[in-house]
C-alpha cells in the first residue's frame, strides 16, 4: 500500500503532461504575444557587482535587499517573541483589564487587513517613537564616525537606521499578536495540577508563570512558533510599503529602472523560497531531535 504511494500511476503521467503543456504555453505566450525579451544575463550584476574603484565585488540591489530582509526578520522575530510572550501571559491573566486589553489588540489585528495595520502602526507608533527618541540625528552621527563597522554589520547603512527600525517595530507588533495566541495556547495546555503544585510550595503567580508554566508551554509550542517565524519572513515584504529597503522594495526599484520585470521578480521569489524552505527543513530536523 505504502509502496504504491511512491510509484507513478498512469494518471500521474497525464497530470504531469498537462502541467508541462500549460507551462510551455504560458512561456510561449510571454515570448510571443507579449514579445518579452528575456535578459537573464543582466541579473547576476544586480546581485553582486564589481566595483572598479575599490577593485572588489560588492553587493548590489538584490543582495542588499536580501541581507536587509534577513536582518529585519531576525530582529523582528526576537521582538515579536518577547511581545508575544507578554501578550500570551496577559491573555491568561486573572486581571480582567489586562485580559481585555490583550484581547482588543488581538482582535484589532485579526480583523483589519495587514497592509492597513502596517500603515497605522507606522504613522501612529513607529514614526512618533523615532522622532521622540531623536533617532534620526543619533543614527546620522554614527554614520559619520570612522569606526562604525559593528553598527554597519548589525544594521547596514546607518543613515537608513530609523527606517530599518520602524520596519522592525511594525513587523514585530504585527506578528506579536499571532505569537501571543500560540503562547496562550501553550500556557492553557499545561495542566492545572502544575499550577496547584507550584502554588502549594508557596510560589507567587509570577514565579509560577516564570519557572513552571512558561518553560513547559514554550517547549510545547516550539513547532508552531517556528512556523510563525517563517510567516514573518514572508510578511516582511509588506514593510516595503513604508519604504524599508528590504528585498521587495529593492526589487521594485530594480524593475522600475531596468524593466527586467520577470527576471527580477523570479529572483526575488527564489530568494524568499530558499530562506523559508531552508528554515522549514532546518526546523523539521531540529524537531526530530
Amino acid at each position, binding site marked *: 500500500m505504502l509502496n504504491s504511494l511512491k510509484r507513478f500511476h498512469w494518471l500521474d503521467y497525464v497530470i504531469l503532461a498537462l502541467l508541462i503543456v500549460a507551462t510551455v504555453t504560458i512561456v510561449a505566450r510571454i515570448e510571443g504575444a507579449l514579445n518579452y525579451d528575456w535578459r537573464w544575463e543582466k541579473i547576476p550584476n544586480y546581485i553582486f557587482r564589481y566595483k572598479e574603484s575599490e577593485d572588489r565585488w560588492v553587493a548590489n540591489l538584490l543582495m542588499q535587499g536580501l541581507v536587509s530582509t534577513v536582518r529585519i526578520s531576525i530582529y523582528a522575530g526576537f521582538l515579536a517573541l518577547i511581545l508575544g510572550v507578554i501578550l500570551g501571559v496577559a491573555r491568561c491573566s486573572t486581571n480582567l483589564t489586562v485580559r481585555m486589553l490583550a484581547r482588543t489588540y488581538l482582535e484589532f489585528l485579526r480583523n483589519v487587513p495587514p497592509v492597513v495595520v502596517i500603515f497605522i502602526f507606522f504613522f501612529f507608533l513607529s514614526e512618533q517613537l523615532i522622532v521622540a527618541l531623536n533617532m534620526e540625528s543619533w543614527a546620522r552621527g554614527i554614520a559619520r564616525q570612522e569606526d562604525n563597522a559593528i553598527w554597519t554589520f548589525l544594521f547596514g547603512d546607518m543613515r537608513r537606521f530609523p527606517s530599518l527600525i520602524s520596519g522592525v517595530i511594525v513587523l514585530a507588533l504585527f506578528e506579536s499578536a499571532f505569537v501571543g495566541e500560540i503562547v496562550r495556547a501553550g500556557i492553557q495546555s499545561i*495542566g492545572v*495540577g*502544575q499550577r*496547584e*503544585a*507550584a*502554588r*502549594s*510550595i*508557596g*510560589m*507567587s503567580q509570577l*514565579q509560577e508563570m516564570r*519557572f*513552571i508554566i512558561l*518553560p*513547559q508551554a514554550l*517547549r510545547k509550542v516550539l513547532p508552531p512558533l517556528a512556523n510563525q517565524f517563517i510567516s514573518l519572513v514572508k510578511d516582511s515584504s509588506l514593510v516595503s510599503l513604508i519604504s524599508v529597503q528590504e528585498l521587495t522594495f529593492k526589487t521594485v526599484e530594480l524593475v522600475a529602472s531596468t524593466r527586467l520585470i520577470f527576471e527580477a521578480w523570479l529572483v526575488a521569489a527564489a530568494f524568499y523560497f530558499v530562506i523559508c524552505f531552508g528554515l522549514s527543513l532546518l526546523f523539521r530536523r531540529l524537531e526530530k531531535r
Partner: protein
Amino acid sequence: MSARDEMITVSNVDKFYGNFQALSEVSLSVSQGERVVICGPSGSGKSTLIRCMNGLEFHSSGSIIVDGISVEEGSKQLKTLRQEVGMVFQQFNLFPHLTILENLTIGPIQVRKIAKAEAERLARQYLERVHIPEQADKYPAQLSGGQQQRVAIARSLCMETRIMLFDEPTSALDPEMINEVLDVMVELADTGITMVCVTHEMGFARKVADTMVFMEAGRIVEVAEPEKFFTNPESERCKLFLGQILEH
C-alpha cells in the same frame, strides 16, 4: 490537648460549587503532631476539605485557621501559609521539565531564598529519607509512579513545612508500588510532623492515625480514635462503608 497546640481549626465551614454544596457545617480541629486520616465514599468532600486548608480552594462560609493564619481568598498571608503547609497530590504533579533535584530545590531557592548549595544539600538529604538518592539527576518521566510520589513527598519536605496534607497519595499507583509510598509516609509520621491524609488505605490508617474522620455528602459523620473506629463505629453509614472496603 490544649487549645494553644491547635494547628488547624476548621469551624462551621460550608463550601458551594454553584448550587452544589460540597461541604456543609464542617468543623474539625487538628493539634500539633496529630495524624488525622480522612476517609469516606467518593464525592463526600474529603479532597475539597483538605484543599481548603492550604487555599487551593476557598470555603464559602465559616472559618479555617491554619497555624494562626486565617485562610481567605486574596489574603496576603496565603504565601506564608503555603510555605507552612506541604501538599502531596494524587497525580504527583512533579515538574516534568526539571530534574528530580531541581524539582526539590526550586521551592527552597525561589520561595525560601536559600542558597543553591544549601538547597541541594537539603534536597539530597530528603531524597535519602524517601530512599531514592540515586535518582537525583533524572527527569520525572524516567521514574516509576511510586518513585515519583516519593519525590513529591520529598519536594514538600524540602520546604520544611510543619503540616503535610495528602490527597489520596496512593490512588493513582499500581498496586505493587503502594507500599513503598506508604512506608515513607509511616516513617514520616514518626518524625512528629502534623499530617492530614485522605486515603482508603485502612492498614496504613490503623498503623499511624491518631484520629479517624469519616465523611459523607459533605458532612463529617464520625470522628473517633482508630481502635474504636474500626471495631465499633457509631454510625450505620460508617459501618457499611468499612464493611465494603475491609471485606476483601
